[in-house]
């Protein structure tokens, strides 16, 4: 979280303070009932981050070493994927280059990395924003993520890095960087690419796990709040409802074909089929609405194939392969896990309905552009990088 804040802080300091004071006002409106969170006792395992991390690592090891795990079935006979799964991770999407082809940390290294990431995630500079969880009587680490021995989410290519860009993608990126170096006094929501700030999409509905902090790739979602994916299964369907923005993916598993190619949507068109205990989901038909981009700057030629497999009572293996011939020179793949979250429910996330933040962010950006005070080496006026 800190890295994110540092990158955006220069533009957003004032806006954020205003946004937060508004949030407090809203919370104090008489009709707003207090959230139950304030009354929740913290499980004692989370009071010491180091101990909690070790306990989580042990539990995870025990869970994934279950030899004879029998995947439960739904009443209608499909493997049972139901529940809320945590999509946050501190494992980076891309492996640090200095690690070469080292795919796994030792246990000690993994715990040390995890601890560093968790502490960094929780800490922020209180002069910029009050997002330090510890200010809310929470611990540095209680997000439900688990240590992972992997040095990167990416398992293919072998170096754990995104493959090289194709020429046209390099040109797109150079053009975007060049635009970012220009002052943009015409900045407004019309040219504002950031779908999350605009409440068009939440964080990470597809793919679900994108890589963690710190030192994560620029587009990585934080390991933090609202990283829950609610899996609701019914005959012929898996429906995923994200806590973040309540994005909904309805995935038919009944053999029906993709929608016609002219039907394009933000979340694409997902179709699933079972291969043994694994649900394989192919997503295509993504739209292309400049200045927004698709996942990691990809285009409407993006295809994502996900594989969901229960490997323990509380663990879902989650693999995905990303293909976009207009962006990467070859497909690349991720292999990770998602832990179960209890209880099995999510809350309404009415983002657009009270998107005070957008007003503040765009106002602040306009001021910086007109004043010429935006650091041209940093965050772009368009908010999309």
């Amino acid at each position, binding site marked *: 979280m800190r890295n994110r804040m540092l990158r955006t802080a220069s533009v957003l300091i004032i806006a954020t303070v205003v946004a937060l004071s508004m949030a407090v006002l809203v919370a104090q409106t008489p009709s707003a009932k207090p959230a*139950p969170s304030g009354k929740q006792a913290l499980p004692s395992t989370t009071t010491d981050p180091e101990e909690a991390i070790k306990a989580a690592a042990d539990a995870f090891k025990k869970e994934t070493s279950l030899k004879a795990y029998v995947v439960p079935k739904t009443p209608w006979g499909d493997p049972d994927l139901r529940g809320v799964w945590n999509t946050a991770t501190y494992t980076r999407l891309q492996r640090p280059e200095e690690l070469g082809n080292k795919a796994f940390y030792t246990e000690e290294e993994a715990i040390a990395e995890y601890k560093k990431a968790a502490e960094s995630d929780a800490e922020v500079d209180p002069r910029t924003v009050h997002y330090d969880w510890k200010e809310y009587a929470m611990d540095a680490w209680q997000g439900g993520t688990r240590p992972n021995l992997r040095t990167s989410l990416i398992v293919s290519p072998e170096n754990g890095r995104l493959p090289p860009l194709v020429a046209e993608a390099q040109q797109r990126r150079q*053009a975007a960087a060049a635009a970012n170096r220009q002052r943009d*006094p015409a900045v407004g*929501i019309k040219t504002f690419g950031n779908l999350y700030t605009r409440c068009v999409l939440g964080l990470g509905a597809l793919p679900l796990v994108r890589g963690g902090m710190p030192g994560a790739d620029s587009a*990585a979602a934080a390991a933090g709040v*609202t990283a829950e994916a609610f899996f609701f299964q019914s005959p012929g369907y898996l429906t995923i409802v994200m806590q973040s923005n309540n994005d909904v993916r309805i995935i038919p598993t009944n053999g029906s074909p993709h929608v016609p190619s002219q039907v394009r949507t933000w979340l694409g068109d997902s179709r699933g089929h079972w291969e043994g205990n694994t649900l394989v989901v192919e997503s295509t038909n993504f739209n*292309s609405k400049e200045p927004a981009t698709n996942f990691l700057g990809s285009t409407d030629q993006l295809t994502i194939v996900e594989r969901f497999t229960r490997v323990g009572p509380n663990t879902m293996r989650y693999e995905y392969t990303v293909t976009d011939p207009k962006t990467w020179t070859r497909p690349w793949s991720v292999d990770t896990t998602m832990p179960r979250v209890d209880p099995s429910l999510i809350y309404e996330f009415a983002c657009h309905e009270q998107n005070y933040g957008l007003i503040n962010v765009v106002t602040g950006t306009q001021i910086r552009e007109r004043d010429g005070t935006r650091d041209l080496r940093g965050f772009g006026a368009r908010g999309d990088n």
Partner: protein
Amino acid sequence: MRIGLTAFSALVVAAVISATAVTGQGQAPPAGRQGQPAAAAAPRPAAAPAARTEDGKPNFNGIWQALGTANFNIEAHNAEPGPHPEILGAWGAEPGGMGIVEGGTIPYKPEALRKKQDNFKNRTLVKVTNDPHRFDTGDPEIQCYRPGVPRANYMPFPFQIFQNRDQILIVYEYKGSMRTVFMDKHQDAPVDSWMGWSNGRWEGDTLVIDVTGFNGHQWLDRAGNFFTDTAHVVERWTRRDADHLNYEATIEDPATYTRPWKISFPIYRRVEPNAQLVEFNCVPFVEEMMYAPIGLYNPPNRSSR
């Protein structure tokens, strides 16, 4: 613990969301659409939906839609030219209808009736502020806000019911709004919301859903009918036959009405072999309307409209 974080999110994160996230990368030029493999034209396997689920309950799984004009006005109403005949002509006109209110009239208290009439006058008013006055405006639908219950059930969009024994998920095409109906673990609404908190139970073959915890910003239609945050809605869903449901809802709100009152209408199964919800993410559709007047869509001196 996740209760803690998610409930915390529900109150605070929406308000501060934009300050925290910077995702996505470089800007891409519009991409062509060639290369998309044409989907095979094979029809969906024609499995007739079973009348009952494995646990013997009526099976509501499927894609459903109400017909009619209740979203314009749940009371009986004439055809009207709509708010902008000068630009929209017959496109913007509103068909007449017989209404869905049993007995024909909503039993408003006098003050509430005046509010309803003001609502109608201001129905297209859009106000974007940084405080709760943001909601002293026209119809939430025009700004792509969640529609609440029961309105979501009679908007002119399909919705899909996904049924389990302990939870029922309803996803509405409009805005992708959703609600979970809790069949086993009932609790009071933990926080106010647009779609309310739904506790469900079976009374024989009728699905009865108790909806409370509204935030008080809901309208029932474009005519300005409304309730407040003390509203209590009891829905009754019954299978009429394989492709039709009977729906009724009792609406109680002592702050607004002199007595509880009822709406009822049929709901139809979308029987087309390729019927499905098509993403209707209306946020981008309302940004110019909402943010241009305060200079945040195009800056005022650079308007290219």
